[in-house]
């Protein structure tokens, strides 16, 4: 349906598309949600900022964690649950972690049922590799391209449904009628044409926001659109101070700084050494060494460089030469190619230079563990954009299974909601028109202004400096001052060119999200005055017992400002808490 609207004194056309369920984001979580919703016979629309199959899921390398026990039969969901909570420093939503660890094996088998191919054990089962913080060999994998296998399998599954896929389309606002989310406004990047999506339920599956930092393993897409769209619509956010720095990103040459070096390298026996040749992990975690959790290894790498034991280009050395060329080509072929092509390094002969890189966001939209419903009726969230499962530090390999377990649950939850819904998704045309006007502003206002690219760089530098993996109160506050100054300058952003595939205009949208999220992270990081997982305050000595019992919940308050509530974590039920007691008794 075409409708003419008058915007900025000009007739602005937009299209209206109607679906039962609108899914924003086409990574693993969004695609798995789509499969669930289409099975209920619902009309599903999937909005993807990129082409289908290019979402950040494709970058996951090491594997998908599930306690199928193929190589270590003693593994169980209980052990996976305990590992996940210990790594998350008990800030995790324990019910999410319980559901997650119980359902992950089914989701892996389901992938196999749909054509995914994993490496095999000699018995013909799915092979599993060790990873940091996992008690047993638990990561089902195919070489070092497990994410590609997952997303391609899901993509081909979704292409076989009648879901409608809006590729290269960006959503800029969720629409509400009363309390309920009833759709969204977006535009097609190719043409710059606007779409009003009417929907009975919306699932947010937009991934993380690594792009607020300069050195990150995230692509341009990781700008946190979903978390801000949800926040603006009234959704609660949780654990926003918790950013994961992956211990091993590339450092050299400059163009690849931050590019991910899979934890699979350490899983396959890779050793970390400093410029003095010392295996320094024995000073940080003598027991687990290189296979300690990501927060610990990242801080170790950072500290070695900070204290002057780094490499020429400011990294530490990661050595996998013991596998030899044949072994590397079998287990880590992508890493071999990556270093060979981009850095002229033959990793079968010499070590890699690595340094922590921003990788993942533990925090996000707070959801109900059973249905992935948010506190806003009609709005659901799954995958990296949702918070709660990983607490203060995510275990490697838990992300891919998170996408599938909660992607499915979000699809089921939204479908049940649609089934009970008798409300219309109609809204006043004004809301759409106002939003279109706002989005077009940087392009149409004219005159001299600020470049969104340069503003983004300024923000990334400020976050690198003030909200890195070692934090302190004064520096966080200084960073907050810089971000608030950028917020004031936001209305000055101007871009040239037309609406046709214009990355400058797209970046002008992203910068608003980046600023809002950075402010939230800095404000919550100021309040968590302790050392816990990814939040490491140098001006406090260790973990704070009281702070360990609560999550910071962020909502937009009545004045449009950031409201932070300290919310107590409900006590773990007996059947879960007893697991830790039994372990203690054994030890």
């Amino acid at each position, binding site marked *: 349906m075409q409708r003419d609207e008058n915007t900025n004194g000009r007739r602005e056309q937009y299209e209206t598309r109607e679906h039962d369920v609108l899914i924003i984001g086409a990574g693993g979580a969004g695609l798995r949600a789509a499969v669930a919703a289409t099975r209920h016979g619902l009309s599903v629309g999937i909005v993807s900022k990129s082409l289908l199959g290019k979402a950040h899921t*494709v970058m996951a390398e090491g594997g998908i964690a599930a306690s199928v026990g193929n190589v270590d039969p003693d593994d169980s969901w209980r052990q996976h649950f305990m590992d996940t909570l210990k790594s998350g420093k008990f800030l995790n939503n324990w019910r999410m972690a319980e559901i997650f660890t119980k359902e992950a094996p089914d989701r892996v088998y389901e992938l196999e049922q749909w*054509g995914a191919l994993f490496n095999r054990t000699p018995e013909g089962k799915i092979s599993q590799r060790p990873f940091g913080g996992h008690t047993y060999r638990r990561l089902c994998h195919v070489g070092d391209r497990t994410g590609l296998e997952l997303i391609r399998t899901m993509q081909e599954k979704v292409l076989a449904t009648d879901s409608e896929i809006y590729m290269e389309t960006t959503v800029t606002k969720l629409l509400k009628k009363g309390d309920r989310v009833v759709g969204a406004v977006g535009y097609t990047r190719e043409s710059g044409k606007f779409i009003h999506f009417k929907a009975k339920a919306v699932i947010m599956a937009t991934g993380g926001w690594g792009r607020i930092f300069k050195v990150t393993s995230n692509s341009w897409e990781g700008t946190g659109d979903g978390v801000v769209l949800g926040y603006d619509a009234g959704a609660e956010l949780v654990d926003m101070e918790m950013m994961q720095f992956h211990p091993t990103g590339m450092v050299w040459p400059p163009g690849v700084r931050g590019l991910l070096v899979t934890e699979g390298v350490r899983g396959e026996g890779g050793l970390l050494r400093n410029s003095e040749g010392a295996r320094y992990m024995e000073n940080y975690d003598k027991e687990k060494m290189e296979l300690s959790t990501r927060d610990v290894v990242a801080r170790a790498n950072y500290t070695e460089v900070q204290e002057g034991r780094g490499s020429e280009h*400011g990294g530490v050395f990661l050595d996998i030469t013991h596998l030899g060329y044949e072994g590397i080509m079998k287990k880590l072929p992508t890493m071999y190619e990556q270093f060979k092509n981009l850095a002229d390094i033959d990793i079968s002969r010499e070590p890699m230079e690595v340094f922590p890189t921003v990788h993942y966001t533990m925090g996000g939209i707070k959801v109900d563990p059973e249905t992935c419903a948010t506190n806003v009726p009609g709005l659901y969230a799954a995958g990296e954009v949702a918070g709660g499962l990983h607490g203060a530090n995510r275990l490697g390999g838990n992300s891919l299974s998170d996408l599938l377990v909660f992607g499915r649950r979000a699809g089921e939850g939204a479908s049940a909601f649609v089934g009970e819904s008798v409300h219309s998704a109609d809204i006043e045309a004004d809301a759409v028109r106002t939003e279109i006007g706002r989005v077009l502003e940087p392009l149409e206002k004219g005159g001299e202004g600020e470049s969104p690219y340069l503003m983004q760089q300024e923000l990334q530098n400020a976050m690198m400096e003030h909200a890195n993996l070692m934090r302190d109160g004064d520096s966080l506050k200084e960073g907050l001052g810089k971000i608030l100054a950028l917020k004031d300058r936001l209305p000055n952003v101007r871009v040239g060119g037309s609406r046709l595939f214009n990355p400058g205009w797209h970046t002008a949208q992203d910068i608003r999200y980046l600023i809002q999220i950075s402010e939230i992270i800095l404000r919550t990081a100021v309040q968590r005055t302790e050392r816990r997982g990814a939040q490491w305050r140098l001006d406090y000595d260790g973990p704070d017992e009281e702070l360990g019992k609560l999550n910071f919940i962020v909502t937009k308050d009545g004045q449009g400002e950031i409201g932070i509530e300290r919310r107590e974590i409900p006590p773990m039920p007996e059947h879960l808490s007893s697991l830790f007691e039994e372990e203690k008794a054994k030890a």
Partner: protein
Amino acid sequence: MTEGNGNNPGNVTSRAHSPVPNEDLGKSGKTAKLKIFRGDSEGGQEVEYEIPLVEGMVVLDAVLAIQAEQAGDLAVRWNCKAAHCGSCSAEINGRPKLLCKTRVEEYDGEEIHVHPMRAFPVIKDLVSDVSWNYEVSKAIKPFHSSEQAPFTMYEEDVERLYEPKKCIECFMCQDVCHVLRTHHKHAEFAGPRFFVRNQWLEMHPMDEEDRLGDLKEDNGLGFCNITKCCTEVCPVDIKITDNSIIPLKERVASEFYDPAKWLMRKIRGNGSSRNGN
């Protein structure tokens, strides 16, 4: 502290600041010139840009630097910047390349011309409309097995499938294939990418579908005259011609051109026997 490291935090403020890489490291003092196609479906022309050359710079770095500093609306697709996602396919000096994997230094002494892929309609600048590929993909019969996973499959049963599974859908094989690029057979020909997909589906030990009829008719496998152009451009080194296309051609030949099978079909009607592994 909770985790073993007994180091004194020392100078608190400085340690909270990331060790910042020296921004001057890698600066060569030289510049690079790129001639980039600027235009849309109506046409366009090359525009020359000059930027400082940084050690190890790939063409995508150069294009993004130009975008940030000189041409804000320069359209280019990219995502992972690590040759894992296949988004940044374009043509450099007439050859399909991943911009993120191609070093500027490779063209030392040569001019660098960057254009969008030409086998598809141009949208703008370096971005072309590749949506046709997703339509082809959608028409392929998906994996199907009536057996319930977990499957028992041995490494030796599946190891040849890892190669086609590596495909990152950059569509550069489609771009270089003359059946598409020169003869525009998009309506009748699926292209190398989708023979690669058909290959693993047909060779998967648990799959029960039969796609040989579709390969012969809808996917136009016969149009390919095995010039190996696709194999040459594949960024993940899939031997598309030898390992995907030729084995599929052999299966189609034995299914449809074997006189005994032809006779069987005449007698039984449309009954097509599955050509197993």
